[in-house]
C-alpha cells in the first residue's frame, strides 16, 4: 500500500526519507494496535453472550481463537486482492 509514496521518495533528500520512514513506522504501529483492538471487540462480540460466569468456557475460548485466526487469514487475502487491483489499474491521473 505504500507504493506511490515510496516511488516519490527516490528524488528527495535523505533526511526527508528518514522522516518519511519514521512516519510510516508510526503508522504501522498505530494501525496494528487498532487492528488488535478491533479484533478483540469483534470476536468478543461474536463469541461471548452469556454472563453467568466470570471466565470464558471452553466453547467460547475456541470460538474466539477461530474467529481471530479466521479474521487474520481473511485480512491477508483481502490485502493480496487489494494489491492486485492497485497494480492492475495504474494511476491514469
Amino acid at each position, binding site marked *: 500500500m505504500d507504493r506511490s509514496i515510496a516511488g516519490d521518495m527516490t528524488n528527495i533528500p535523505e533526511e526527508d526519507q528518514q522522516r518519511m520512514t519514521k512516519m510510516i513506522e508510526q503508522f504501522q504501529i498505530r494501525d496494528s494496535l487498532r487492528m488488535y483492538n478491533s479484533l478483540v471487540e469483534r470476536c468478543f462480540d461474536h463469541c461471548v453472550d452469556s454472563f453467568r460466569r466470570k471466565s470464558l468456557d471452553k466453547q467460547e475460548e475456541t470460538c474466539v481463537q477461530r474467529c481471530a485466526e479466521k479474521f487474520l487469514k481473511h485480512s491477508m487475502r483481502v490485502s493480496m486482492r487489494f494489491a492486485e487491483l492497485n497494480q492492475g489499474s495504474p*494511476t491514469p491521473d
Partner: protein
Amino acid sequence: MASAPSGLDKDQIFGMAEQEMEYRVELFNKLTKTCFEKCIEKRYKESELNMGECSCVDRCVAKYWQVTSIVGQLLGSSRPPM
C-alpha cells in the same frame, strides 16, 4: 512532490502524505471489515477460510473497488484519491 523547495512547504507535503496514508489505511480497514461481515460464516466451525468464503471475498473486494470509483466520479474527481 520533489519540486517543493522551502521548509514550510515540506511540512505541508508531509501533512499530505500523512493524510493519504490515513485515507488508504482507512479504506483497507473498512473494506476488510465489510467483506468479513458479508462473506465469513460466523459459526466459526474451523479457522480456515473455506472455498465459498474465499471466492466470496475475492468478488467482494472487486465490487468494493468498483463502488470506490463510482463514488469517486460522483465526488467530482475523475478518479478516487488513490
